[in-house]
């Protein structure tokens, strides 16, 4: 039978390829490095490995104990997809600003404030398609205000936006009181931001689009290069003629605008706004950035890293919930992860490799 001769042939091919690879290897240093080292050398490579390892363990666990550990159940995957976008939007904005060398602690409060603003406008009869852009505009303006104060007076943005955090949290209560606001937009609006497309949650599609867009903006566009230069070495950037104040101002605006976008996604999902819902989110967003490999001193990091940081936080939260761990374990786990990530990043920075 001719088919019986096929297996030996295959083996022959397999024996040829390794020899080729061996003879080609010494030519360049990068080829000699193992794939593992190559991935570690890429931006966000280390976080990618951690993320993949966690996924493999989770998927293996779910396949072995499908009834006890329902990681792969459709319900769980939907919960994950719904949870990621809000923190994702906040972290993308906060991350761009962090790479530019500044912080924004007010995004959690801005997220709530703009959501309340949008929901109450819709409650007053305004179309959601008008109210949502107005919410984003409010977020952008608040970001610009934070930036102006920081730059004009030469203050640390940490302090300015700490003020912002308290101010806008108070503004929510002043404007609305401590009651929840119902959000009843047109059905088209709801399905656009919290419906499903081909079984995938709409908000998740949005966050993926944002990640792709931000990736191109930061890593493939002139503006991104200026952001890295501003955060990496402000003196050098200015010496070469980059207007670093303008770059920072735009980054502040992006952080504020993305906080408002997060507010829209969250509000469309739940159908109402709680005045206290944003508390602590700003810290989670910064945590996601740090886990994703951003330097607290600015100038380093990647959009993919930020997104992986967000995914990692939510995967771990999800796993702990599935294992029915008490709530305080979540915080302790995330806390450990942040510190470990910061130590790891610091070691990489000192070695000068990123």
């Amino acid at each position, binding site marked *: 039978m001719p088919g019986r001769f096929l297996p030996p042939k295959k083996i022959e091919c397999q024996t040829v390829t390794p020899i080729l690879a061996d003879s080609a290897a010494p030519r360049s240093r990068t080829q000699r490095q193992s794939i593992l080292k190559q991935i570690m050398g890429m931006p966000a490579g280390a976080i990618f490995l951690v993320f993949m390892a966690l996924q493999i363990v989770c998927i293996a666990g779910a396949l072995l104990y499908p009834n006890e550990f329902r990681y792969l159940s459709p319900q769980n995957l939907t919960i994950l997809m719904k949870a990621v976008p809000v923190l994702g939007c906040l972290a993308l904005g906060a991350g761009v600003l962090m790479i530019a060398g500044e912080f924004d602690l007010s995004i959690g409060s801005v997220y709530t404030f703009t959501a309340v603003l949008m929901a109450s406008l819709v409650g007053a009869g305004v179309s959601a398609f008008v109210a949502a852009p107005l919410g984003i505009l409010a977020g952008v303006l608040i970001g610009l205000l934070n930036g102006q104060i920081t730059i004009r007076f030469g203050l640390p943005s940490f302090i300015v936006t700490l003020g912002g955090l308290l101010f806008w949290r108070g503004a929510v209560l002043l404007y609305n009181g401590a009651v929840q606001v119902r959000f009843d937009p047109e059905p088209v609006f709801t399905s656009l931001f919290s419906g499903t497309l081909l079984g995938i949650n709409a908000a998740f599609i949005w966050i993926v689009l944002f990640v792709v867009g931000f990736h191109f903006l930061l890593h493939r*566009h*002139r503006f991104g290069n200026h952001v890295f230069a501003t955060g990496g070495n402000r003196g050098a950037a200015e*010496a070469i003629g980059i207007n670093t104040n303008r770059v920072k101002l735009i980054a502040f605006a992006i952080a504020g605008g993305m906080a408002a976008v997060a507010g829209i996604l969250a509000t469309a999902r739940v159908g109402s706004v709680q005045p206290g819902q944003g508390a602590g989110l700003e810290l989670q967003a910064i945590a996601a950035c740090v886990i994703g490999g951003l330097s607290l001193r600015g*100038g380093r990091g990647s959009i993919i890293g930020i997104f992986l940081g967000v995914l990692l936080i939510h995967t771990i939260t999800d796993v702990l919930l599935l294992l029915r761990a008490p709530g305080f374990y979540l915080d302790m786990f995330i806390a450990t992860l942040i510190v470990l990530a910061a130590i790891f990043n610091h070691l990489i920075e000192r070695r000068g490799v990123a």
Partner: protein
Amino acid sequence: MSNLLELHNISKSFGALTALRNLSFHIGEGEVVGLLGDNGAGKSTTVNLISGIHKPTDGYLSVDGRKTLFTCRSDSADAGIETIYQHTALVDSLSITRNIFMGRELTDRFGFLRQAEMREIAMEVLQNAVHISGIDSPDTLVGNLSGGQKQAVAIARAVYFKKRVLLLDEPTSALSVRETEALLNQVLKLKAENVSSVLVTHNIYHAYQVCDRFVIMSHGTKVFDVAKADTTINQLTDYVVLT
């Protein structure tokens, strides 16, 4: 024939402090000038003035014989003057390519980077314009380079953007012996391509190796201006130390 850059009776005061007094000197086409002097002689103020960071209190600069006023860094850059500071020139967390094109990126109509093109140019500049040992890829992060390699990248940037005068502020103070040698050769090579250089330094020996002319400053003004042929290293040392 007019000189490339001239300083005419320049004075600069910061409040009650007079940093420069009645300073005049010139830099010719393809000339390497050593600006020497002890600490506090006013060298850095002079560099900042030429690169447009400071404005003169009195007096003026002229480029190609035309009186000009530099109000900011980009004015001097437009006139073809590139200042290479020791520490502030490059961003460590960006690649060599991105540093070379920082602020002057090649982009398409929408501002997206033409990465392949920039990478190719960077590769060419690194291989041909400046010979830097140990750099194998323009994708290397500048933070991984040595002091001399960093300066070579900064020079490569100036060369690619066709600058006419390089102001090198204390270029050799952080370099190894071999790197210093490479840097000084680089200056001579640029001179052959008609690029002028100003070496601001207090290392007279390094300056003596490559400079055509020496301007010695003390207490904010020029005390000596001499061509290399008319002086000796001992005389230069005396002027720097004793005035």
